[in-house]
């Protein structure tokens, strides 16, 4: 690899060193001083800023032995000008549940990456991976070996299970209705094979949020969104409610009036909740966490089908199982997941996400195939059109069709 580290002139990017928000240009520049890949990235990026187009070529399949994903191949369209980013592949490292780290663990990764790559990272990618940003093909195996030896493995890319991710959950949040970290770890381990070797029609994402605040945005971007909820009554500490009121919270207008189901009332002394109407929106609990807690009978709602807009418009996940207990070994959940994957494997077209498949075959058909009971929680409203595919009809006695 060429090792010229003389300064690149980047008048456009330099503008992005100004301002108070920490600058990614500074991050690149600092590495550029010692890392030729970073230096050429800077140069090529400046070129893009001039030309207003990307200078990466289309695609490129690379990877590590025995894995079908985890590396995004990338090649410069100007390798002559920027030889150190002629290859500039990204490695996706499966982050630990909830993005909790020790400094020791992070340093180990930094050391490997400084040696074998650009020294630049994304902490993290939008799917959740720890993204190592740019190296050449010959470094992939060494990096892989070194990292696995430190206990790290690759994340997903292509038609595989993508790195599941979860919110801080019970580790650092009082709202968690199930153990998001444990479930994420468990599923990731249980499904290593489909995470690393493409066996699906397209990608599959799991995201686990401990409560309906959905701090990993699972409803927007996971094929299966597992969102903690509770079944019984919100736990109320009336004394603490009064304390909030005293401290200036207008319980009527800020809490009761904003409750979407209007199931709360406040007489200046007690907060009453008609729990049978509560739709678990979290607002009151969010606003007065010292006074209110989710109920005790906890589990999760399973929603299915979110994805980005290509090709039929973005979808959010929608309710598949209104309530499921979420306890190791998560057998009920795994049975469900595997049943869905089987169905998807059989009926899904190439590059068809599960949400698209469900739309294509119809939710009713999908439920029936999976032997899941239809429930009114699944719909915002029942159908408005009368085009019902009634499935059976009577024939006249002795009739022959």
């Amino acid at each position: 690899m060429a090792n010229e580290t003389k300064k690149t002139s980047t008048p456009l990017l330099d503008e992005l060193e100004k301002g108070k928000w920490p600058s990614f240009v500074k991050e690149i520049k600092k590495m550029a001083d010692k890392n030729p890949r970073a230096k050429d990235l800077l140069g090529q990026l400046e070129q893009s800023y001039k030309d207003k187009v990307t200078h990466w070529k289309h695609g490129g399949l690379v990877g590590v032995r025995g894995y079908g994903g985890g590396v995004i191949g990338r090649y410069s369209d100007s390798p002559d000008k920027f030889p150190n980013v002629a290859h500039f592949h990204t490695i996706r490292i499966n982050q630990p549940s909830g993005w909790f780290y020790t400094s020791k663990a992070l340093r180990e990764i930094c050391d490997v990456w400084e040696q074998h790559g650009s020294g630049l990272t994304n902490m993290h990618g939008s799917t959740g991976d720890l993204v190592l940003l740019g190296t050449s093909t010959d470094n992939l195996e060494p990096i892989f070996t070194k990292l696995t030896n430190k206990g790290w493995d690759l994340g997903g890319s292509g038609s595989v299970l993508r790195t599941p991710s979860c919110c801080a959950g019970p580790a650092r949040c009082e709202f968690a209705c199930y153990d998001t970290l444990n479930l994420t770890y468990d599923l990731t381990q249980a499904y290593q094979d489909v995470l690393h070797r493409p066996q699906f029609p397209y990608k599959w994402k799991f995201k686990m949020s401990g409560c309906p605040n959905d701090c990993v945005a699972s409803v927007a971007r996971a094929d299966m969104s597992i969102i903690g909820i509770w079944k019984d009554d919100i736990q109320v500490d009336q004394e603490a409610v009064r304390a909030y009121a005293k401290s200036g919270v207008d319980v009527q207008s800020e809490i009761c009036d904003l409750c979407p189901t209007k199931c709360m009332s406040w007489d200046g002394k007690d907060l009453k909740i008609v729990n049978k109407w509560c739709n678990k929106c979290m607002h009151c609990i969010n606003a007065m966490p010292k006074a209110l807690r989710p109920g005790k009978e906890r589990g999760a709602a399973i929603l299915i089908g979110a994805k980005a807009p290509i090709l039929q418009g973005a979808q959010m996940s929608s309710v598949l199982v209104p309530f499921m207990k979420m306890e190791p070994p998560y057998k009920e959940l795994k049975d469900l997941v595997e049943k869905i994957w089987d169905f998807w494997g059989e009926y899904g077209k190439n590059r068809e996400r599960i949400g698209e498949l469900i739309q294509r075959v119809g939710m009713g058909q999908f439920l029936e195939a999976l032997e899941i009971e239809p429930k009114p929680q699944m719909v915002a409203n029942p159908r408005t059109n009368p085009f019902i595919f009634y499935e059976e009809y009577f024939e006249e006695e002795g009739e022959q069709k």
Partner: protein
Amino acid sequence: MESVQAEQRRTDIGPPKYDQFLHPVIKKNYGKWKYHEIVKPGVLVHVSDTGDKIYTVRMGSPRLINVDTIRMVCDLADKYCEGYLRFTSRHNVEFLLADQSKIDPLINEIEANGYPVGGTGKSITNIVHTQGWVHCHTPATDASGIVKAVMDELYDYFKTMKLPAKLRIALACCLNMCGAVHCSDIAILGVHRRPPKILPNLNKICEIPTTVAACPTGAIAPAVVDGVQTVEVNEEKCMFCGNCYTMCPAMPLANSLNDGVSIWVGGKVSNARHAPMFSKLAIPYLPNNPPRWPEVVNAVKNIVEVYAKDAKKYERVGEWIERIGWPRFFSMTGIEFTKYHIDDYRFAATTFNTSTHFTL
């Protein structure tokens, strides 16, 4: 290639188990948290049923960070947090402290290093974003550059908690929407506006039937040009989704004169009060104007400011617009309403106003 011994090579081990990365106070109080408070912008305290407390200091990050920055963060974690830290779902760094008295010294060091502390509560936190020109092959704009320019302008909203509610911004550099901008309070989305070019070597690198099938609007048809099998694009039918380029590298859409940015508003993810909502089109197109995209920065800032002034406490952008109605949103922000705002895709009919509920 560096030689690797077979016995060193392990596969399918998955990520390290999370429990080894949990601060002892967290480990002890796992699942026992009782409540939290926002001590001040960027600082949370979580209090356990056991009475234990863990403090969190949230540091803003550009997400694209180098190993030295990670090491700097590690140093701080060692010094203040017994070596424990985490990252958030929006790419900020969170330092986890058992000792309240270390908060301010930590913040001082963070800020001395040029990073802000904030992003909690009714603030604008980090912008979820994507690769852009830094690493992707399909972008219609850059990601990190716009994020930097916008966050510079919104910096105070990160450091304070003076908004009516949380305001979440996301950016995606093409319609693949890796930034999942479709459910954001404000979304910045790169858009192409010129139909794909057809490179002369198309027949050598793409399968023509697959390429034709890639187009959701049926704009692509097989063609023969100068005796060579290729495709042609009915430009009237193209809505610039880029799926053809994803499937066939010989159909690039990137175009310096026409690529740019669209702005979307009113999405949300949480179930708090209102169910999750999609983002809706606010501005169909703003030019790519690197390095600092002033049109985009101003557009975002304008929306934030109008919202900040008019919305009620707890009202997310989408809830605010639902209350005031779209006519007021457009008149208050001064954004022009055009035919592009009116949906003409699959579910168009479900977005029309079938009532007399509107203001004039």
